[in-house]
């Protein structure tokens, strides 16, 4: 039920993000979700694409430092309080969220999150009947 996310280590060098993304577009791979975190020396690009396996191979063939990590995606209603209520469920269960990124489509918001305790996170999702988003759904959005 987890989603494979690709993480890419990017040196802070002008044009590097553009270069990495062009490898994917040349291979006809569409980026569904992406986020970049940065420090003074390097950035980390987190990616979900239409074909994760192929995307990973393409990046590796270009010697890009990348690996695949499991994340969870949840769909919630895009309304005022829903986001904070959802995060609160995890907090109350004592689960730390390592990082998260979100995007909205129509009236829905998709939360992509990473936690070190996946099993506990599943429990929270099941008990509270949250909507999982699986990979095939996500890439068809």
């Amino acid at each position, binding site marked *: 039920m987890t989603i494979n*996310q690709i993480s890419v*280590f990017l040196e802070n060098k002008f044009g590097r993000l553009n270069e990495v993304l062009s490898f994917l577009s040349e291979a006809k791979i569409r980026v569904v979700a992406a986020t970049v975190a940065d420090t003074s020396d*390097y950035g980390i690009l987190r990616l979900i694409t239409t074909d994760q396996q192929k995307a990973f191979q393409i990046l590796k063939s270009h010697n890009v430092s990348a690996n695949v990590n499991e994340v969870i995606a949840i769909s919630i209603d895009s309304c005022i309080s829903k986001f904070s209520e959802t995060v609160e469920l995890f907090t109350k269960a004592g689960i730390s969220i390592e990082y998260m990124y979100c995007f909205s489509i129509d009236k829905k918001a998709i939360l992509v999150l990473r936690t070190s305790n996946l099993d506990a996170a599943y429990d929270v999702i099941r008990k509270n009947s949250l909507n999982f988003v699986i990979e095939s759904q996500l890439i068809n959005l």
Partner: protein
Amino acid sequence: MEYWQEEIETMKRSDLEKLQVERLRKTVEIAMNSPFYGKIFKEKGITPESIKSLDDLKRFPFTTKEDLRNNYPFGLASVPKEKIVRLHSSSGTTGNPTVIVHTQEDLNQWANQVARCMYMVGLRDTDVFQNTSGYGMFTGGLGFQYGAERLGAMTIPAAAGNSKRQVKFIMDFGTTVLHAIPSYATRLAEVFFEMGIDPKKDTKLTTLCIGAEPHSEEQRKRIEQLLGVKAYNCFGMSEMNGPGVAFECKEQNGLHIWEDYVIAEILDPETLEPVAEGEVGELVLTTINREAMPLFRYRTRDLTRFLPGECPCGRTHRRISRFQGRSDDMMIVKGVNIFPVQIEKILMGFKELGMNYLITIETVGNNDEMMVEVELGEVRIDDFPKLQALTKEITRQLKDEILLTPRVKLVENGTLPQSEGKAVRVKDLRKNH
């Protein structure tokens, strides 16, 4: 002209060479007692009686830093332990450090050697000498301390760092002569100006001894201008006691190497044969005025040349040029000796890192800065805190090993020179190189 020991400093070359042969013979007699040299001398048939001239030096095999490490700690000691009164150890080397031991007489001789150097550049018993060397195992601390005390100068063991305090001492105690590594001398000049003090007018400084770190003639001129002093280049290494091996005289043209303390050869590092007169080669030294741990034909790995001709100062001991590099890959950063392999050893201990790394040394402001770039290996790239902790841990371990803090930068795979073949591991962009 004034000398500390006129008779020795201006001795006729032929007499000086006679003295060298005599002392070499005596040193062989002492060193026969060391497990290391005892065995070698037996194999090579080297006895005190067999030493007839300086040519006999060719019969001795070379001694290297490796020999010192392999016989750590006391394998080269020539006297029983009860005669040893001091131990010094070199900084920042791989595996076993190198250890040098001294008898009381060795320390007396060393203090005399340093006193002679400092007298040569003008230090007198009316002077106030401040030493900014690190004390402890590093020989620049105690070496200068005992030398200046022997000379009779008021000696302030200020030790390294705390620049504002250094400036306060210079002002309050009326320091006239200072010992500092060149980059620190420039740093001190900055601190003076930040504190609104003009060192040229507001201090009594006249003389600076600078060494332990490669520096250019331009850098010396700059230090002299900034501080309003004369700056003299000094050379030493812990294997040869420490500071005092060679020192510039007031001519500021080459360093007199004290040939009543060492026999100096300059050899081609490949063939190990003497280079042509005045050519650059590796300095190879034999101690002839030391009893606890004599060293024969010790390969310093420093490249230099003998300056031709006589020095106007009247001293007959030959002059060597400012150092022109190394015959191995040792780097000297902030006065600390560092080998790339030390850094490699630490990096390779991290399974999160790849095989390739690059060390860059450059001058930032007035300081030498070291950057270590290393490629990532197997590591969870999305885990930010882990990457940051990794950088921190690498920095900490490197600091423990090389005694200075490099800037560590993680880089992408495949962006650094490959480890196969002759990879460029070190980029030295310092102005004086």
